[in-house]
């Protein structure tokens, strides 16, 4: 379990990224931090592996304060996937994937085997292994990024808008792939996005953030849709624009699901 205890972050220039943030992230579930830019979601994510140090409060992993752990070793024990993959351009795909294993002192042969295995896990053709990142498409690069995050089989996977830089079709593929992976691997995932649809799709627990890391609402997607806490949440999840307020209309004996503008979005099956 990851726990934020009264976390605050004020940057050196005086801007307060996070005011007072407390939250528990249950193990083996996906928690999505969602909010507009400037809500402090990436700052919060990066506190887990000490890429950012909180100004106040504590972050605990399984009841151990991360501040007591060596940051370099801590980072090697946590998977990290970032926007546009962040792959090392001078290393081949297979070497990029194996980076953290090598840093942890795993032998060359074992690194190779485990890297190839994880490439298959994320659905990448192993014929790409010897290519350089710039020879891959954006979607393929992002898969390599996920493979790199998973190769050490970490308990925790941090994902910072990982699918933000790919086109919508590829993004849907990657999202589906992540859901499949999570069913198989059962990681504790912290996922940051500004896309509420992505948050509802991937999150077991969704945290909607306002400016300064203030929690507008925490809950499952169903909870939030059923009982939005306030107008901010209602507007953020789109209930006020009618895209999510659906009703049923019968047409020729078929029950259609229609949004508030009258546009048909699906068919209801009994």
């Amino acid at each position, binding site marked *: 379990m990851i726990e934020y205890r009264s976390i605050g972050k004020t940057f050196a220039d005086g801007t307060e990224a996070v005011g007072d943030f407390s939250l528990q992230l249950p193990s083996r579930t996906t928690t999505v931090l969602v909010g507009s830019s400037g809500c402090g979601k990436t700052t919060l994510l990066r506190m887990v*592996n000490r*890429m950012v140090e909180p100004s106040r409060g504590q972050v605990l992993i399984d009841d151990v304060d991360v501040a007591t752990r060596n940051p*370099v*070793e801590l*980072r*090697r024990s946590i998977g*990290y996937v*970032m926007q*546009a*993959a*962040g*792959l*090392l*351009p*001078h*290393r081949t795909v297979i070497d990029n994937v194996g*980076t*953290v294993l090598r*840093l*942890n002192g795993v032998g060359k042969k074992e690194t190779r085997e485990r890297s190839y295995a994880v490439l298959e896990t994320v659905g990448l053709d192993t014929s790409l292994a010897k290519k*350089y990142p*710039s*020879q*891959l*498409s*954006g*979607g*393929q690069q*992002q*898969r390599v990024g996920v493979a*790199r995050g998973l190769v050490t089989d970490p308990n925790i996977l941090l994902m910072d808008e990982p699918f933000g830089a*790919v*086109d919508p*079709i*590829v993004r849907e*593929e*990657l999202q589906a792939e992540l859901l499949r992976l999570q069913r198989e691997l059962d990681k504790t995932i912290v996922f940051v996005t500004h896309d509420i649809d992505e948050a509802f799709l991937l999150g077991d627990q969704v945290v909607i953030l306002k400016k300064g890391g203030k929690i507008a609402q925490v809950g499952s997607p169903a909870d939030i849709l059923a009982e939005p806490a306030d107008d901010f949440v209602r507007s953020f999840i789109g209930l006020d624009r009618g895209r999510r307020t659906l009703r049923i209309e019968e047409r020729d004996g078929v029950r259609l699901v229609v949004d508030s503008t009258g546009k048909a979005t699906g068919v209801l099956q009994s």
Partner: protein
Amino acid sequence: MSWLLDNRDYVWDLTVRHMWLSAIPIVVGFLVSLPIGWYANRHHRLRGGLLGGISILYTIPSLPLFVILPGILGTGILSATNVLVGLSIYAVAIMVRSASDAFGSVSPQVLDAARASGYSSRGRAWAVELPLAGPVLLAGLRVVAVSTVSLVSVGALIGVSSLGSLFTDGYQRDFRTEIVIGIVATVVVALVFDGLLVLAGKLLMPWSSISRPTGGAA
């Protein structure tokens, strides 16, 4: 041509000497510039003054420098060390800015990703920053190499023999063939050095010369 055939051993000796006199300052200049450039890129406030101060060394005329160095270093007036030290100073003066630019050219996002993966600061400098700075470092080093090869000739004026000696000797004897051979041989040495550097870059940095992405789906 017959002069070249008659003196081929002499010309070859001078060529080898010329290569040594060039190679050492190129290597020294490169190795000295790397940490300075890295440091300058890290400390933006000092960068301007540091790079400006070092670059200005290049404005010292080479002949007077070679003449005053024995007084500073305590070396013999005819010692090759004077030329080696002088040329190393010029190499650093040119290279240090390239080195700083080279480290500055590394994508901050990649550095961030390397840090998140668990690289220590030192490990990241060696395994990520240095190789990724490679293409720009190589570009700077090629300029240094050509400049050094041509400056070695000036050493002939203070008695440190190199291909430049063919020029001084030919000039004194008013013997044009020797002058031309000296110039051509110097150009050939410069081209060989440049070719070797480009080749080394291809071998060490295969990733920098690959085709760009084709795009497309996952």
